[in-house]
């Protein structure tokens, strides 16, 4: 069971007629219950495309993506998207800022219960569910706030709570912490790990930060561009060490952590030296 990516290739039409961009080539990836899979790689390695495949926003050119053996055909509430980047021709140029997918005309609470309301859940039940998940992300005192008045970190927490309310089998996050300051970022790393342990969801998480990837992943997938493919996979347990000691800095500065970090960094730098970076 879980999510299977099976021999998936994604080919976009290029900028010139007849040109093809192999965003992903022959990707195989199994995500089982309780896995926290982090994808890491230079720009243009196809990690965002991979997430959008899992979300059901794009279809593979070859191969298939299944969740609990059922083919993914479009977005669905069993795969909660916390945030994502829209891909496609032209979308790979320049810096793409993650826009918040929260609805600014709704309050924090209304955003959290939005999915349940659409699904037709009775009011009392959805109030309980939304309150529970808002409390889980530490926003129990912010129900009535306007989302556009919150800080970036708090907006991300609303996004996580909203995705959790539908009780999805997995959460998808594309660089959710990329735009945050260092301190907020570390706090939210811990919060996401706690939410993951509490709820037992599968998580597919994209980041540019090697440290973040190592700290959070049970499985780290290093990807390489042109064509986008998985080059290395590591099974990690630094997050378990964090749960044991509750001291993220100690985990991140341990000799073992630094050793793995340098190894992964050298792989990614190797890609960039080989011309893997985004040359526009």
């Amino acid at each position, binding site marked *: 069971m879980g999510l299977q990516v099976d021999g998936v290739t994604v080919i976009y039409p290029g900028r010139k007629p007849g040109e093809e961009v192999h965003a992903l080539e022959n990707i195989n990836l199994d995500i089982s219950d309780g896995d926290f899979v982090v994808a890491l790689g230079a720009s243009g390695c196809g990690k965002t495309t991979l997430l959008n495949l899992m979300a059901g926003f794009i279809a593979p050119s070859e191969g298939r993506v299944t969740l609990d053996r059922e083919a993914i055909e479009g977005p669905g509430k069993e795969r909660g998207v916390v945030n994502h980047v829209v891909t496609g021709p032209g979308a790979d140029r320049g810096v793409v800022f993650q826009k918040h997918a929260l609805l600014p*005309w709704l309050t924090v609470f209304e955003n959290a219960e*939005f999915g349940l309301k659409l699904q037709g859940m009775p009011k009392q039940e959805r109030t309980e569910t939304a309150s529970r998940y808002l409390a889980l992300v530490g926003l129990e005192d912010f129900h009535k706030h306007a989302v556009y008045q919150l800080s970036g970190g708090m907006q991300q927490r609303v996004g996580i709570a909203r995705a959790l309310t539908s009780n999805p089998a997995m959460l998808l996050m594309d660089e959710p912490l990329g735009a945050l300051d260092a301190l907020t970022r570390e706090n939210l790393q811990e919060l996401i790990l706690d939410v993951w342990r509490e709820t037992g969801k599968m998580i597919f998480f994209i980041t540019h930060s090697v440290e973040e990837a190592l700290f959070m992943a049970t499985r780290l997938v290093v990807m390489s561009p042109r064509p986008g493919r998985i080059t290395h996979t590591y099974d990690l347990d630094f997050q378990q060490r964090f749960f044991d000691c509750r001291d993220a800095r100690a985990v991140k500065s341990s000799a073992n952590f630094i050793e793995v970090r340098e190894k992964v960094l050298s792989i990614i730098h190797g890609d960039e030296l080989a011309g893997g970076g985004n040359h526009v």
Partner: protein
Amino acid sequence: MSDTAATASKNGVLSAITNIFSKGPAKPGESFGAPGQGSSVAISVASSLGLLLLWYAVTAMGLIKPLFLPSPAVVFDKFVEVATEGFGGSTLLDHTLWSMGRVFGAFFAAALTAIPIGVFMGVNRVMRGIFDPPIEFYRPIPPLAYLPLTIIWFGIGESSKLILIYLAVFAPMALNARAGVRSVSIEQIHAAYSLGATRTQVIWHVILKGAMPEILTGMRIGIGFGWTTLVAAEMVAAEAGLGYMVLNASEFLVTDVVIMGIIVIGIIAYLFDLLMRWIERLLVPWKGQM
């Protein structure tokens, strides 16, 4: 010789322009190099009073004949006279009510049709394909140019007036609604689908809400256009209305009523705009926030 003079004056103009944008470090609370920053309210009040004073001065000194420009006092007296005794068969209030009835009637008819059509144009390529050519074709044509046609088709009664204003209001409202739909963030739409929303729910709960700021902008522009077209609409066979009052007064060279009418039209248009801005702040406080 003339070349150097031209270059010199060009340099003078250039440096005058660049000086506006770079005059040393910014004061606390201002941002360096931001064009045109700072409050202009006091200057606007001074400029309005200055214009009024200029008007008073040139008429008091007898520089312009009252036939061409009556003094502010005379215009104000006329305002009181028309408000109480009337002009052209109706009081000022009647004229205003007639005009507002026409503008608002056409405005509401346009809002009920243009906004749905604009939204459909945004969400559906077939609708966009159908409605784009006629709207884009007639939009830049001045209403006065198709006024004769509306009279031939709909006669000289109320309907041709309403239709003329309606057409002027329709295009900006439809096009803004369409632009509003297209401006909704794809991330929000994707998020809603991922939460299990159906297409109808996405249109209703995400796209329409997200398009609201631009729909309201369209309504604001629309009511401005409607008011602008009013005088043209009341040119033919009207018996009351501010536009009719001004035109009728001009035929008899009653310049004070003409000026008074213009000022009343201007003030009402400005009040409409303030009202629409207030409604905007009330309905879409998140505008420009995310």
